[in-house]
């Protein structure tokens, strides 16, 4: 983790504060030798120069940074906080203690102090208020300790607590009943020794099980890839055509494949930076753990970026203007946005929908990322995901090359 943070910090500092370094550089350039030098590998130089400059350009564009880096982070915070409390059960209840016994007082304090499980509504003082709140589902249930609760009988305190609930919240109330049952059971054994021939105990399996946060993070990486790879070029390419930037390039001997490769490269760099930032935030703020190999994860993410960027390249490269590009992009993006597991895990969908959505281009990418990052799988284990992504990549780029227009 540390080295990723270091690299990201260095890259960002270099891009954002490039000016500081500039002084020494321009001094060097004032002493020209020959104006033209053929680089050792001209093709590579062409592609790398174009990629380098478009990465620089990107990081000077504050709107683009907002939409591709900050936007997914905002989603991370929203969805992350949802799933944070998802592991423990918590009840929002009213507590009415009508008894004056010592035991009732102690029990009330015990319930109140268990803040992890019970969130007690302080405004509830009598049953009418409680019923009112329950009918509006503001509280799940109400625990009432009747007047005789905790009175001493047969040498020890005894009594029956009552859980009131609205039928709407039956499930929560029943769970609460089970929980209270367990608590009383513990208390009972202190007063009366009971022999228990059968017991049950819960044991957690491996620590690698998936939490909803794991789904959220890999889904948001998918969202980020879409934002960068599709919405980016779909907005930017028609703009470049309008300004005649592409026309200027068309006058030069630059080949469309060189332009494609340099665009893909810069997109991959920008994508990796923004995803790295997201993963860092996810691990720092939400305790997200990457179990798998960073290198394999990075490699697979690059592959995913490349594939999805092809869609943006095809739409943006084909469209003459933004009026053509935007609707087409929406038609293609929205199904992926909601059905590939970006915001909602696919396992919550009905079976038939899961079968269909399995073949969307983004689905194997999100699945693959999750399998490497949180299940610790290797590239060799996710053959189906890689295969499906590769098939899409071939289809997408075949189309993108065919429909590309410089003007």
């Amino acid at each position, binding site marked *: 983790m540390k080295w990723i943070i270091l690299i990201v910090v260095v890259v960002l500092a270099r891009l954002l504060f490039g000016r500081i370094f500039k002084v020494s550089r*321009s001094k060097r*350039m004032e002493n*020209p030798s020959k104006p033209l030098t*053929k*680089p050792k590998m001209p093709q590579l*130089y062409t592609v790398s120069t174009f990629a380098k400059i478009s990465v620089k350009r990107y990081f000077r564009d504050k709107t683009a940074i907002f939409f591709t880096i900050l936007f997914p982070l905002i989603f991370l915070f929203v969805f992350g906080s949802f799933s944070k409390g998802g592991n423990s059960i918590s009840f929002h209840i009213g507590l009415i203690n009508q008894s004056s016994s010592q035991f009732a007082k102690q029990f009330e304090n015990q319930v109140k102090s268990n803040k992890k499980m019970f969130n007690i509504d302080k405004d509830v003082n009598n049953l009418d208020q409680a019923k009112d709140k329950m009918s509006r589902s503001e509280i799940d249930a109400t625990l009432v300790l009747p007047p005789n609760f905790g009175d001493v009988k047969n040498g020890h305190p005894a009594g029956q607590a009552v859980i009131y609930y609205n039928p709407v919240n039956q499930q929560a109330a029943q769970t609460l009943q089970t929980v209270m049952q367990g608590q009383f059971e513990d208390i009972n054994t202190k007063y009366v020794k009971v022999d228990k021939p059968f017991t049950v105990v819960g044991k957690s399996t491996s620590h690698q099980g998936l939490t909803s946060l794991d789904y959220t993070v890999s889904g948001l990486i998918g969202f980020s890839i879409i934002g960068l790879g599709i919405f980016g070029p779909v907005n930017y390419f028609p703009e470049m055509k309008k*300004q005649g*930037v592409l026309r200027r390039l068309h006058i030069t*001997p630059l080949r469309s494949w060189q332009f494609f490769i340099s665009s893909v490269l810069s997109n991959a760099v920008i994508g990796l930076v923004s995803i790295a930032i997201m993963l860092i935030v996810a691990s720092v703020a939400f305790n997200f753990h990457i179990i798998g190999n960073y290198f394999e994860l990075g490699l697979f993410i690059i592959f995913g970026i490349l594939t999805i960027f092809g869609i943006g390249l095809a739409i943006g490269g084909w469209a003459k203007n933004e009026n053509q590009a935007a609707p087409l992009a929406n038609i293609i993006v929205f199904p992926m946005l909601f059905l590939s597991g970006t915001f909602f895990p696919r396992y919550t969908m009905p079976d038939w929908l899961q079968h269909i959505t399995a073949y969307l281009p983004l689905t194997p990418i999100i699945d693959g990322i999750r399998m490497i990052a949180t299940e610790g799988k290797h590239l060799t284990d996710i053959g189906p995901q890689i295969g499906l992504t590769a098939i899409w990549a071939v289809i997408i780029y075949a189309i993108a090359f065919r429909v590309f227009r410089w003007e």
Partner: protein
Amino acid sequence: MSKPIVEVENLHKSYDGKEVVKGISFEVEDGEVFGILGPNGAGKTTTLETIEALRPIDKGTVIVNGVDVAKNPQKVKYMIGVQLQSTSFMDKVKLTELLEQQAAAYGEKIKPLDFLKDVDLTDRAGSYVEHLSGGQKQRFSIAAALVHQPKVFFMDEPTTGLDPQARRNLWDLVQRVSKRGITIILTTHYMEEAELLCDRVAIMDSGKIIALDTPKKLVKDLLSKGFKKKQEVQQASLEDVFIDLTGKELRD
């Protein structure tokens, strides 16, 4: 006389069934400044675009420096430089980076500051194009078009929209480029510009060349037909007054 550097033979070009260029032929000599004049819609820009290998040729041949444009457009692209009508560069990219990128498109590595010096833009090296004035943009666009040291340089209405100072400055620049031995083909609406810069001009109208000669010869021919200006020729124009009052100093 040496072999012409650009040979256009019976060039035709149509858009949507409408013939814009109707079989024109002309030759441009190596090292000359050649002007194409004509009213809007005469087919000047289209003619340039077909020579630049931007538009497919419908009929006829265009040969640049011995290379057939229709057969080998990629090779032609290395030999020509084009200054576009609208100065179109990516935003948020520094001038030095734009030049580097432009050269990279030709597979060349350059020292951008040398080229900025040629067009007096050294002090704007770290600026973005969108922050330049009109004249500066035009000069930068020339620098960018020449990074790969082309043999033929195309300029489409280079001084349209410039103030008189910037226009004079650009004329100087064109003459400097010409002195380096680069052949220049330009279109313009300004006759005094053509007269000053061009060794020869072709006048186009409705897709055809209706006259082609040196500016001097064309004027002489007209006079020999008995042409007389209605007004007596003045020794100075309003533009001369303007320049006299405001000076030749560039305003950008």
